[in-house]
């Protein structure tokens, strides 16, 4: 891979990486025919983000033909390349990204003012493809807003707030801070904002619903959307199924898929029973995630995952969790993480798939996937609206 980013697009790229760093610790980089995909997922796999920069985003974009390549690296290292975000626009004239598969080096070369040349040679690991299973087009509700509107809304919540609830009905949207059931109700402070539908560029509410998801990732996306001035779309269904936040432009497409909280306790119990049968309790040292009560459809395989018809998420599927996961539930999540750890520790067999326990049903067999890799990617790209907008500033 060999690509060049110039002018203001360097800052867009840098902002994207900073935005991704709010999701997970690792950056998955995949040069595709339809552009450069940068992805990240959080450790509990409840949040996933993908930035797809089309070839037109770059001044030069060449990828080796007929040779799929993907890698991952610590996102901190990539962030370090673009550390001085504020001065980036003034100092960096050109950014050259080169991937040397043989030497296992990803090279970022920043051509800066006064002839200063910054070269960062980063090491990376080969990785499986990372692809969330989601279908935003089938969501019942869609809100489309200028970033400013959402930024101003989110601004009212304290920085320590972890989750926000969004409720829609008819012509209105409510944003309120989510108060944990465990929290003492008398001490909790509620903040609620009500927005009218005419504040949005597009307001399509098919079903009255209320969802709760993590604010941190939303904030991360908003920082990006605000800096690029691009509108944000929000696609969601009933509680428990993921919310998709999108930013699209003619040269880039951003999708954040965040798990939402379910309020259905029965389904949770059902889950627990399944879990107990499926898995023996793993050791206790994997309880590190603070938002482990979420999970979204996430599938990782050696080949690129599907994102089209292969995502028949039935509303009643058992991917719902309560806000207070029971002990058994926690075990389940540990179990999942343990599996992940295991696959990292021991050399993973090439075609072994990791999948969320809750979404085992959506994963096709490997033979099925082989021909679908490229197809699914095309579908991803076709999601973007036919923007006639000029490329980013």
């Amino acid at each position, binding site marked *: 891979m060999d690509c060049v980013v110039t002018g203001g697009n360097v800052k867009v790229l840098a902002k994207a990486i900073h935005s991704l760093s709010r999701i997970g610790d690792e950056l998955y980089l995949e040069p595709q025919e339809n552009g450069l995909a940068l992805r990240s997922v959080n450790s509990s796999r409840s949040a996933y983000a993908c930035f797809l920069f089309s070839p037109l985003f770059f001044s030069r974009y060449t990828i080796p033909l007929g040779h799929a390549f993907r890698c991952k690296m610590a996102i901190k290292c990539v962030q370090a390349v673009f*550390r001085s975000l504020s001065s980036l626009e003034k100092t960096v004239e050109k950014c050259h990204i080169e991937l040397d598969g043989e030497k296992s080096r990803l090279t970022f070369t920043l051509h800066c003012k006064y002839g200063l*040349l910054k070269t960062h040679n980063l090491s990376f690991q080969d990785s499986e493809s990372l692809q969330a299973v989601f279908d935003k087009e089938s969501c019942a509700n869609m809100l489309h807003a200028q970033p400013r509107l959402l930024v101003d809304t989110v601004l009212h919540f304290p920085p320590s707030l972890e989750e926000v609830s969004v409720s829609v009905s008819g012509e209105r949207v409510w944003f309120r801070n989510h108060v944990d059931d465990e929290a003492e109700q008398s001490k909790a402070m509620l903040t609620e904002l009500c927005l009218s539908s005419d504040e949005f560029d597009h307001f399509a509410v098919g079903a009255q619903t209320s969802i709760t998801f993590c604010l941190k990732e939303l904030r991360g996306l908003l920082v990006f959307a605000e800096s690029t001035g691009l509108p944000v779309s929000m696609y969601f269904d009933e509680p428990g199924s993921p919310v998709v936040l999108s930013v699209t432009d003619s040269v880039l497409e951003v999708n954040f898929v965040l798990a939402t909280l379910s309020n259905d306790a029965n389904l949770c119990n059902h889950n627990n029973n399944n879990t107990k049968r499926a898995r023996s309790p793993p050791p206790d040292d994997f309880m590190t995630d603070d938002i482990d009560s979420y999970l979204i459809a996430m599938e990782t395989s050696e080949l690129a995952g599907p994102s089209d018809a292969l995502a028949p998420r039935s509303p009643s599927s058992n991917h719902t969790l309560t806000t207070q996961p029971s002990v058994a539930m926690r075990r389940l999540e540990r179990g999942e993480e343990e599996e992940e750890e295991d696959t990292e520790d021991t050399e993973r067999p090439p075609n072994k798939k990791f999948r969320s326990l809750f979404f085992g049903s959506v994963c096709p067999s490997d033979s099925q996937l082989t021909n679908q890799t490229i197809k699914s990617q095309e579908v991803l790209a076709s999601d973007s609206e036919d923007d006639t907008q000029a490329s980013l500033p």
Partner: protein
Amino acid sequence: MPLSTQSQTGGDNYVLVASLDNVRNLSNILKAITFKDHAIFNATPNGLKVTVEDSKCLQANAFIQAEIFQEFTIREDSVGFQVNLTVLLDCLTIFGGSTVPGVATALRMCYNGYGYPLTLFLEEGGVVTVCKINTQEPEEPIDFEFCSTNVTNKVILQSESLKEAFSELDMTSEVLQITMSPSQPYFRLSTFGNSGNAHYDYPKDSDMMELFQCTKTQTNRCKMSLLKPSTKALALSCKVSVRTDDRGFLSLQYLVRNDDGQICFVEYYCCPDEEVEEE
């Protein structure tokens, strides 16, 4: 040096009296060399030189010329003493070290000679604080024998361009490698960290490069931990001169402009970390 002065009182008997209208002109520059507690003070009629050392590998000197002081009286050719720099800085900023224009702490620093404490009279807004800091036996600073005739490579850069590089340096790297060469890459800073390596190249014709005198390709490594304190000096400075001699010793000289526009110098000497094969 006489063993003692006749009297402990009376300004007339001080061997050294230095007054400043704005104590920041002294405290700021001392902050640029604060990485160890012990500071060796050496006053001559030319001014004050303060030396701080670490592990016999790093030496920092701050020079405050006599002209910087409103009064600088010295009764001997050379007056030396050692004090705890952290304590001294705490005293100098006892009024909070305000940066508000028009509000300045005035200082009168007196020393009676060997065996006497260093006496500071600080005044701000009519309030006077008197601090006495016990002095210690002055040690002899290490002579790095860094001689300008042995300098093989020298560049002078606007600090601005180095500030950015130093603020971004990969601190997981154990060393900072400095390459100076009459041919490419001219002047290069390299780090070798956990995530890979990074190089910062400054072309010799850059507007940031004030002087470029390299005669020989030289690659030196310095411990990052040793160089880290020098970023304080860099932050204050407007120009920096980077020199290496034939032994691979590194000299960094910082030109610092104080609040009143006067110029002072801070200098760092650093031993090379290890021999690097020269091209």
